[in-house]
């Protein structure tokens, strides 16, 4: 009898520990904007906008592992961050309420295939505009311009990108950030997710991690006493909104919507409650690329 009781107690303690451990996984900074769908959205017959407006729902691919940009903790219902906020603004202008947006996680590798196969309607996932990508999908924007920086332990001597030559630098396997680090003479170390890289930096197995400054600021803000972001940006990443080439009309609509959000302040508000959390003021809205006629 006694042994059973001890076992039960041990199991209960184990479960309690597990539960405590999980508690950290959910994010506490779930601040979001309330966005109302535009009621009288009108679109030309036969366009993709009209179809989406008619359907009353939209599927948007975002990142789930980038604090500030697009992040979904275990147990969170919807992803939070700058990208989802932009998604809500676009959806609202299609006459779609935020609760009718289907969020789908896209990772760097599957963004083009998801758009080409129409698994998602839009990709808003720290999706840098490049010529190669524009060959296979449409990219409207940019809605945000950032640059690559370095995240190092607080006591690190690395102050700028010049200091990483010959050092091991972590980023996501196959990413542009890793290529840029290689070009700066660093020994690139690819991991699957940014959070694994943060662990590597904290454990001292790499000297630094690198990716877009916006993402690094999110991690530094989580552990300000252990980590810091250093260096001037050494690349330019222009985040665009991906759409399928089957529906070129989306480009002008997205650009008009972004332009409007720049003017009415909703873009800045979205920035302040997400990326701006780490103390940065909203930058000037970027100039949008012209849509191909």
């Amino acid at each position, binding site marked *: 009898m006694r042994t059973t009781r001890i076992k039960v107690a041990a199991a209960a303690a184990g479960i309690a520990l597990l539960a405590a451990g999980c508690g950290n996984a959910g994010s506490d900074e779930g601040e979001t904007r309330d966005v109302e769908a535009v009621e009288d959205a009108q679109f030309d017959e036969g366009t993709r906008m009209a179809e989406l407006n008619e359907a009353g729902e939209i599927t948007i691919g975002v990142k789930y592992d980038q604090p500030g940009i697009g992040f979904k903790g275990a147990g969170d219902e919807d992803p939070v961050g700058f990208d989802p906020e932009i998604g809500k603004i676009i959806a609202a202008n299609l006459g779609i309420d935020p609760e009718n947006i289907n969020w789908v996680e896209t990772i760097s590798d599957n963004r083009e295939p998801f758009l080409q196969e129409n698994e998602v309607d839009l990709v808003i996932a720290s999706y840098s505009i490049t010529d190669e990508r524009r060959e*296979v*999908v449409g990219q409207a924007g940019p809605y945000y311009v950032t640059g690559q920086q370095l995240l190092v332990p607080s006591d690190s001597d690395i102050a700028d990108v010049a200091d990483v030559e010959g050092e091991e630098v972590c980023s996501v396997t196959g990413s542009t950030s890793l290529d840029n680090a290689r070009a700066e003479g660093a020994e690139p170390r690819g991991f699957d997710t940014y959070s694994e890289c943060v662990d590597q930096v904290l454990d001292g197995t790499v000297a630094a991690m690198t990716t877009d400054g916006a993402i690094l600021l999110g991690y530094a803000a989580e552990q300000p006493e252990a980590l810091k972001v250093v260096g001037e940006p050494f690349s330019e990443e222009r985040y665009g909104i991906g759409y399928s080439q089957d529906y070129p009309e989306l480009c002008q609509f997205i650009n008009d919507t972004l332009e409007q959000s720049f003017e009415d302040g909703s873009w800045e508000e979205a920035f302040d409650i997400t990326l701006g959390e780490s103390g940065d003021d909203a930058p000037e809205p970027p100039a949008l690329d012209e849509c191909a006629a």
Partner: protein
Amino acid sequence: MEAVFGNFDVYLAGFGLTIGLAVVSGVLSLLLGLLLAAARVGPVPVLARAAGLYVTLFRNTPLLVVFIFIAIALPRIGITFQSIEVIAVGDYNVSAFFVRAVVALTLYTSAFVCEAIRSGINAVPVGQAEAARAIGLDFGQVMRLVVLPQAARAVVPPMASVFIALTKNTSIAAAFGIAEAAATMRRFTNDNADQRVEIFLLVALGYIVIVEAIAFSSYALERRWKVAR
């Protein structure tokens, strides 16, 4: 196509690392697996139990979990293998990342090697070992002189399968800081979204070439060791 052929040195370097990982972990797995198999069939009960436990533990754990343990959990408690970086091969320093990947692959693969060897040992009729004992050989001599040479023949095909699996398993290291072939593939597809299919096929072709090389050597070995019974 030109994504790969324009950067063919990168492609080759990626497969170079894949082969390096496979060869180093393969040799170490073979040694560790041989010791484990000897322990498992040997006369010392403690060793047999310990080797059995090892096989149960590592054969039943997904390789990804082993990798996460070595590359993410161990550094957290201060085991980083970084002291090894002082060793240099030529002017090339051994990296702790490579060592961690080799450790993970070796721990995992040696469990399979052990079982492949054990199956070969079991294929040797027990009378052979009994006869060897009867003429006064000790356990080491029985294994070395009588059982293992006969077991080796039976072991070639399953061992080739183990090494083929190992070669493909090295791709997991792509997510743990090693720029091997799978990581190189992801780098290419990220930079050249318009050439995905060609890149996938060319990387698959690289793996096929390596695996076929292993398969052909195993056939050759089988033929050479074949004896009339």
